[in-house]
């Protein structure tokens, strides 16, 4: 008789597990739909441009050079004409309007321009004042036909534009990997144990470690398919930057795999600690939610309080997100993200030491 192959048995589990995952709506929703929705949302609203909403007061004189320049020159300013004075006051207070503009012609033919800004939107109000001021200056200078004392010349260094998707996508990818790893593994091992599926496996010649490896392999394949899908959608539909093309894509997948292995360790711990099915989500959320907020998934860690930042920088998802962003946008190689890889690996060692103690078979 042929010798028994543990690998063959392991692959049978991987295949079954993968078939099962693909047919489980929650796994597909968490791994694919959830991050995609965020990417779609940020992909559409996240052009990164500032927009100034300015109301034009009733009885404003619009037949003048200032107004026409304002209307045509700037794609930042959106002028709205049909507001009543009362409405303008209300909207300014709420901050939905950034400023209001009134233009009146003096009896000598000069223009009187009035700008009203709001404490609810101070930055944008100031910006509008600056833009209006520079237009006025230009018109005044040409009207006086004098030589200006100072001339400004501004040039732009050509660079890769850092789009919002370049920040959002790696964060979403990292978070998708985190939740697939933690929730997926926690539920699957808890359920296999609870429904005695695993006990039936024990009655076959497969060794226990190969059961784990088989399940883990299925999760990795599924999550990487998800990751590839997310990256490709981001790249094709929203111009996500893959600086070195295919190499960058593959490096990202490799990092995703490393992250997933670490995060699955948390899943093994949760499946061991949870007493019943309803305690899995709270345990798993305790691991995923803080990282969702603190690991630069939606906004940069630098936006957080200074005292919190050192802690954030040590979270495993931060290491993964940072590495993904460095690789995707800056074209960093695996060696250049070694600090992040090391951080993740240390987390991996700690987590699996805990998992070895807490994981239960029965």
């Amino acid at each position: 008789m042929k010798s028994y192959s543990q690998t063959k048995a392991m692959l049978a589990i991987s295949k079954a597990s993968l078939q099962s995952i693909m047919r489980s709506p929650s796994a597909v929703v968490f791994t694919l739909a959830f991050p995609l929705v965020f990417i779609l949302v940020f992909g559409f609203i996240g052009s990164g441009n500032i927009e100034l909403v300015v109301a034009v007061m009733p009885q404003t004189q619009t037949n003048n050079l200032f107004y026409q320049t304002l209307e045509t020159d700037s794609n930042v300013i959106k002028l709205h004409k049909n507001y009543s004075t009362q409405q303008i006051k209300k909207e300014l207070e709420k901050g939905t309007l950034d400023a209001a503009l009134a233009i009146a012609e003096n009896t000598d033919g000069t223009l009187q321009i009035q700008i009203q800004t709001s404490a609810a939107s101070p930055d944008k109000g100031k910006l509008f004042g600056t833009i209006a001021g520079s237009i006025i200056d230009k018109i005044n200078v040409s009207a006086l036909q004098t030589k200006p004392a100072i001339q400004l010349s501004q040039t732009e260094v050509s660079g890769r534009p850092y789009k919002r998707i370049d920040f959002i996508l790696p964060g979403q990818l990292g978070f998708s990997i985190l939740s697939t790893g933690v929730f997926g593994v926690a539920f699957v091992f808890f359920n296999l144990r609870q429904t005695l599926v695993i006990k039936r496996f024990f009655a076959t010649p497969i060794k226990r470690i190969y059961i784990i490896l088989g399940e883990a392999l299925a999760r990795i394949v599924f999550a990487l398919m998800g990751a590839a899908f997310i990256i490709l959608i981001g790249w094709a539909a929203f111009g996500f930057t893959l600086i070195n093309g295919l190499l960058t894509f593959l490096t990202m997948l490799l990092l995703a795999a490393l992250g997933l292995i670490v995060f699955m360790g948390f899943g093994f711990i949760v499946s061991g600690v949870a007493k019943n099915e309803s305690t899995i989500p709270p345990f798993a959320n305790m691991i995923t939610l803080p990282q969702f907020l603190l690991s630069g998934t939606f906004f940069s860690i630098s936006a957080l309080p200074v005292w919190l930042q050192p802690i954030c920088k040590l979270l495993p998802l931060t290491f993964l997100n940072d590495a993904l962003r460095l690789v995707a946008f800056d074209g960093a190689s695996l060696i250049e993200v070694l600090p992040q890889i090391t951080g993740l690996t240390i987390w991996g060692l700690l987590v699996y030491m805990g998992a070895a103690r807490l994981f239960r078979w029965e």
Partner: protein
Amino acid sequence: MQSIISVTNLHKQYNNYHAVKGISFEVYQGEIFGLLGSNGAGKTTTLEIIETLRTKTSGTVLVDGLDVDNAADEIKKIIGVQLQAAGYYPNLNLSELLHLFAGLYNHQIDTHAILKSVNLHDRAKAKYKELSGGQKQRFSIATTLINKPKIIFLDEPTTGLDPQARRSLWDLIRDLRKQSVTVVLTTHYMDEAESLCDRVAIMEGGNIIALDTPQALIDQLLASGFDPRREVKKANLEDVFLKIAGHSIDAV
């Protein structure tokens, strides 16, 4: 008769509960052997120790000459195990589940033939949870057939089944014996043991209190001057039910 399972002075101690108290018995090749007893008598514990799923406290257990202490992996290759309560991988259909077990046993299988042998060939695309109680048990037995085992263990295979489904399962178990497979089963239905088993061991409180063929045990009782409380009629209510409700496998 050649022995295929040999249990000697087996003990199992859970913390402060002595579940199995030094039992010894042999199972012969090709027979249907029944472990009888009420809940908590130690049947399942004994079975799972022989199946290498549970460790023993002391004693010797040999399965086809292999010791459970050092040849558990070899034993698993030659036995088929149906657990009292087993689950199967969610979201997979019967045919896919059989393929999974084929991989786990490293055996090539013809899923259709296996499903046909347990009368489930028309449910190949069904999910396990969609099956009726009797079909579930028959499928569990199908998973034990994949590695063409020498011994099949069935833990309360007919508990909770209706009379027709039980009859259909008995036929299946008798078919296995015809293929010279040894069957070890537990049950607490005495009619089942009487009609199905070649020999039975009756367990009580972790001990074997009787071991013989069902007929020999009945004869011993009668010889001791047993007087049934009422006259036994030539048929019972189950016979009535089966006669009027039909004994059809396809119906279950």
